[in-house]
């Protein structure tokens, strides 16, 4: 439990985490400003929140989720901090082998990386939610669950990619590339139900929250967990 506490505290000290939040806020409040200036505001805060949120943020959301903490383990690998942490944990669980300790450490980190992605998208969304609530009626509270699941899924995939390559830019950029490729391909593959931007902005096609919105993030999180557990690059600690 101490590891989680310490690691979650570390997330809030990372510049990349705050940069991600600032970029997310710029995209969201830019959209809100545009909607307020372009439309006749009719106190439909639920509609306003959805329209403003769907304007720009959905197209950069995987990058924002991956930015805060996904490649931290690569930095730790370079500075040998990861090896130090594993050694420290080996001291408390001597019966376990080093490779098991390494995997255990990686999987614990998986959850904090997922939380960092979720928090990076949730915080600006919560701020805009509050502003919309002040401006008019309360938007649907369930909409705030979407940035959390979306951020967790894409950050988890990004983290998994750190175990199958050596370049630091790949885990940051690859989720965004896959996302854009899926945006291009899904409509032609008759997978419109799982169109990725709808997972964070159901308002894009006027739909409501259904269980479909959680399928792709869950698949991504599982893929990330699989790569984390079996990726070979992790042996380079």
């Amino acid at each position, binding site marked *: 439990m101490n590891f989680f506490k310490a690691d979650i505290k570390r997330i809030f000290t990372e510049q990349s985490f705050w940069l991600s939040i600032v970029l997310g806020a710029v995209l969201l409040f830019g959209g809100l400003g545009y909607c307020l200036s372009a439309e006749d505001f009719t106190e439909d805060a639920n509609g306003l929140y959805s329209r403003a949120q769907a304007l720009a943020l959905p197209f950069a959301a995987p990058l924002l989720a991956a930015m805060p903490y996904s490649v931290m383990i690569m930095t730790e690998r370079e500075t040998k901090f990861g090896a130090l942490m594993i050694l420290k944990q080996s001291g408390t669980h001597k019966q376990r082998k080093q490779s098991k300790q390494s995997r255990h450490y990686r999987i614990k980190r998986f959850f904090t990386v997922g939380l960092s992605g979720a928090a990076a998208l949730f915080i600006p969304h919560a701020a805009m939610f509050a502003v919309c609530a002040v401006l008019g009626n309360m938007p649907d509270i369930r909409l705030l669950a979407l940035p959390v699941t979306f951020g967790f899924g894409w950050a988890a995939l990004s983290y998994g990619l750190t175990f199958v390559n050596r370049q630091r830019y790949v885990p940051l950029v690859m989720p965004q*590339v896959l996302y854009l490729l899926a945006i291009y391909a899904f409509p032609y593959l008759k997978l419109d139900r799982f169109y990725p931007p709808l997972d964070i902005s159901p308002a894009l096609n006027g739909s409501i929250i259904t269980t479909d919105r959680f399928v792709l993030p869950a698949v991504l999180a599982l893929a990330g967990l699989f790569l984390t557990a079996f990726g070979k690059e992790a042996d380079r600690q």
Partner: protein
Amino acid sequence: MKKTKSLRGLRFSLTEHIPAARWCLALAVIAFTATVSVRKYIDLAETAAFSSFEAMFLIITDITNIVFIYLPLYLFTVCGIMFGGDFGGIDILRCGSRGRWLAGKAVTYAVNTALFFAAVLTANLIVCSRTFEFSSVWSSGFVGFRTMTGSPAADFSAPPLPTITGAAVSALLLYLFCGMINMFFSLLTDRESTALFVSLFAGIALGLLNMTEGSNGLGSQLLRCLALAASSGAAYVFALAAVSKKDLGRVKTG
């Protein structure tokens, strides 16, 4: 002796630094994109019947495919070529000179570009020929559809095969130019990621200019090919100038 060293250096460059994992990923994405592209044109074919060559022409002149999907994928596949073998340290000794080492790298880029393009064309041609019927002439429905969407009728004055070949060679030279830019910036920055992004943005800008300005007729294609070949040559000369001044012993790649 010189010839032997050049050949040995070239063979080394071609065979030692094959990014196998990236090639596997590239082939998977190419196959996937080819399938999706053809599905897109199946939907369009409901308004005008296409032949397999006409569908190929649409794919090879589609900005989304050529500039936004295949170009980043191509650069991701080749951007590690310069960084194999500890950035030239031992390779240059093996080749005998920096110029020969860079020439080997340039040929490696060219071979990878040709292979990548062959894979793109083959995958799309296979899917197109299975989906659409073969015809060696432009159909009136297709020409009508294209002219209605803004293409000049002069684009279709030559038969489909030479027109598609012209468009494919133009796109191939665009990719080669991006490869040369990537080589140049790899030498300048020593960082794979920086070289990748700089060459990607240059390639997207030039690709948009190349594919939106002018017509797709054979004459225009030829002019584009000449301009792109000259630009690739210029980028190689810049890279040659960069490698002659570079202190390769102190390079820390990333």
